[in-house]
């Protein structure tokens, strides 16, 4: 039972981390390798909230806004010139991730730091005593998925984003300003990455290099998910679940490799991954 909860909560964390990368990849066809950097920015936003002794819950909106604003600047300056060069966009955003990491190091130092958790301890859940915060993360991840689905399917911007995903040339011909769609998408993706950083910090420590492993996992999950929020959920459950099982019954090193190895093999034999054709 507690293993099942581990799987579900791990999948929820992965989902929260990967969602921002997925919408940027879906709409812009660009892999944002600064995703790990934005996630680190979110974690340090939470650290600021802790240091200012604000209510820990405020870390979430604060991180989202910081990441979103940063994303706006980055989209204008770095990403926009690289729309036609997707592999270069990977490199430029990776370089940006290095820059963010170094700026954080210069200001906050290299050492590992800790962030206050909004809730403490364990609760009884279905007869198990389980970490309250991890359970809350599941609710947050589901809320995030529902909110993204509502934005995509229920708003004018979401409709335009879906039009750009399907056929950007046609969408532009119909008068959709794809530049605006890209701008909003990238800012939203950066905001979500930052939000995810704030979400995971109560479970892990904060350090300037924390984003890289998360970036790698999120990247692999997005690749096997195609561009669907639903298949991302499936991918997080399957690969995250496999990671939990391998870590439990195998060893931690193998567990750390589970997502990247499985995703690479899945893509080799089924390039569309978990997405329907």
């Amino acid at each position, binding site marked *: 039972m507690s293993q099942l909860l581990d799987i579900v909560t791990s999948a929820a964390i992965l989902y929260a981390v990967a969602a921002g990368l997925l919408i940027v990849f879906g709409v812009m066809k660009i892999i944002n390798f600064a995703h790990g950097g934005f996630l680190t920015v979110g974690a340090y936003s939470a650290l600021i909230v802790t240091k200012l002794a604000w209510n820990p819950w405020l870390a979430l909106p604060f991180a989202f806004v910081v990441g979103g604003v940063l994303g706006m600047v980055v989209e204008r300056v770095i990403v926009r010139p690289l729309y036609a060069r997707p*592999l270069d966009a990977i490199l430029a955003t990776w370089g940006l991730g290095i820059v963010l990491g170094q700026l954080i190091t210069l200001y906050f130092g290299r050492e590992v730091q800790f962030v206050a958790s909004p809730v403490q301890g364990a609760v009884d859940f279905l007869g198990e005593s389980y970490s309250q915060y991890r359970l809350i993360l599941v609710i947050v991840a589901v809320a995030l998925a529902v909110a993204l689905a509502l934005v995509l399917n229920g708003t004018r911007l979401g409709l335009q984003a879906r039009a750009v995903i399907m056929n950007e040339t046609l969408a532009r011909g119909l008068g959709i300003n794809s530049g605006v769609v890209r701008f909003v998408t990238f800012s939203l993706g950066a905001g979500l990455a930052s939000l995810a950083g704030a979400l995971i910090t109560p479970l892990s420590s904060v350090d300037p290099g924390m984003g890289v492993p998360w970036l790698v996992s999120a990247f692999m999950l997005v690749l096997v998910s195609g561009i669907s929020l639903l298949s991302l959920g499936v991918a997080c459950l399957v690969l995250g679940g496999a990671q939990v099982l391998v870590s439990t019954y195998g060893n931690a090193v193998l567990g750390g490799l589970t997502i990247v190895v499985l995703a690479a093999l899945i893509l080799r034999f089924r390039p569309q991954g978990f997405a329907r054709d």
Partner: protein
Amino acid sequence: MTPRRRSDFKLVVAFSIGALVLVAVGPAVLPDFMINNLVRAFLYAVVALTVDILWGYTGILTFGQSAFFGVGAYATGLVFTHMGFSPGNAALALGIGCATSAAAAALVGWLAFYQGASPLYASVVTLVLPIIVTQILFSGGTFTGSSSGLSGFESFDIELRTWFWIAGAFLVAVTAAAWMFVRSDAGRVLVAIRENEARCEYLGINVSRVKIWLMVATAVIAAIAGYAFAGVQMVVAPEYAGFVFGTELVIWVALGGRGTLIGPVIGTLLIDVSTAYLSGNLPFVWKLIIGVAFVVVIVALPQGIAPLVSRVFRRPLRGGAPRDEVPELRPATETPLAGLAEAGHHAIALSGVRKNFGSLGVLEGIEFSAQRGELLSLVGPNGAGKTTLMRCISDGAERSGGSVLVNDHDIGRKAPHACVAFGVGRKFQNANTFDALTVAQSLRIARTRLETPSLWARDASLDLPEAALKVMQATGLDQFLGMEVRHLSHGQKQALELAMVLALEPSVLLLDEPTAGLTKPERMQIGRVLTELTGRHGLCILLVEHDLDFVREISSRVIVLHQGRIVLDGTVAEVVESELVRTIYAGGGHLAGARS
């Protein structure tokens, strides 16, 4: 006759001697600290060169060369730590490092470069490799030294200045070899793959195999650099095999100038040596500056710093033959149908060929055969499945069912390059060429399958079959051999692609609207060439055309395709007089099917 060859041999020798002199005097004039750093930087630069060959020249963005460097270094560290140092063990360590790297590279290549793999997927696999290697090293316990690595093992009894000479000479040798290679005929195939992989595949080049061999060769070179690194530093750590080091190599190459050789070497030496000096005082600021410079270069100067410098000095540093070097055109000794169905009965034979996208059927029950010397036109409205049919004949993986025989060989599920070996030559609907290559270079790429290109030199003559020469002369392209393809007119590109396909010496020619966008006189010329190809050279031509007048003039037989089925198969006269064809083309709105 032995072909005359051109190479940059003299220039490379002169350059190498100059560089070796610098290396020789280095230890005498440099401080010890600097010598130590340069030994390391020389070895890093060798690995950066392998990244440049893969990424700058061939277009494979790799994050994984660090893994091969790490494997070479760890083979040394492990052998010397656990078995002690001896000349025999030194050779053993080198052997193990190279063999393990080669095996890993072959595995990576098999995973990353399958038929139809995306470039992104290849990068993903090269990213996964160093992650796996470092995790294995972490989990090795005392055997691999886990996260602290191995140190203090006994190694070669060589002084530092000698290591400087060894590492420097190694770098000069690898640079010189890479120079000869990228400017050879074989090296140009890499650029062709970067520019247009699909066209290479349809010119009969086994792109996957080329990439896998390249991966294996560069992995072994990186492993040798790692071997020397462990030998001189007597330290190995998981970071040297890691993904972050892999991205650093890419950064050095990008800053120096991808697709040049000198750029990445100079870039690596400068950055690594400056890092050693500056990271003591301002470690984070220095890394920040590198990060900012990298972003700026990728966004604003994608070709890196070296081309900028070379523009100032007006010296071409980039690969490729000098623009004014034009080979002499000669008729080739043709071997059409060699080993193929010289005596066979069908040039092409299709039975029950079917193609569907999900539940949407595009082709259904296609059944026909054609002989040598036939010029068979495929006509039908847009969306009838004409181009899809062409694809099904030239790529075994395309069709959903049925069988295709080319020169009596079943193409099965074979890749396009294998279909080329059976005698298929395919010209695409839109001119599909290599923009960055010259006309002569493009034609040479088309000859790769028949004439194995030299790994170190350029052939001074270009041998083309008669039909290709005729197309070149008829369209005046032979006057533009040294011109880059991007400067050609649309009609010239069409003619060039046709000449490239004919250079394959095909026996079954698939032409998808070869005259689209051409002027009337150009069209007449192409028409004459085609009828001669079937009449005199006995080719079987399958032609997709919309221009019914053109079809009527040159075809020996016409197949009418409508909504994925053959509705008529007969002579020109039969088709022209057919009521059905008139209905499909002119009147029948109810018949106008879904467009594919």
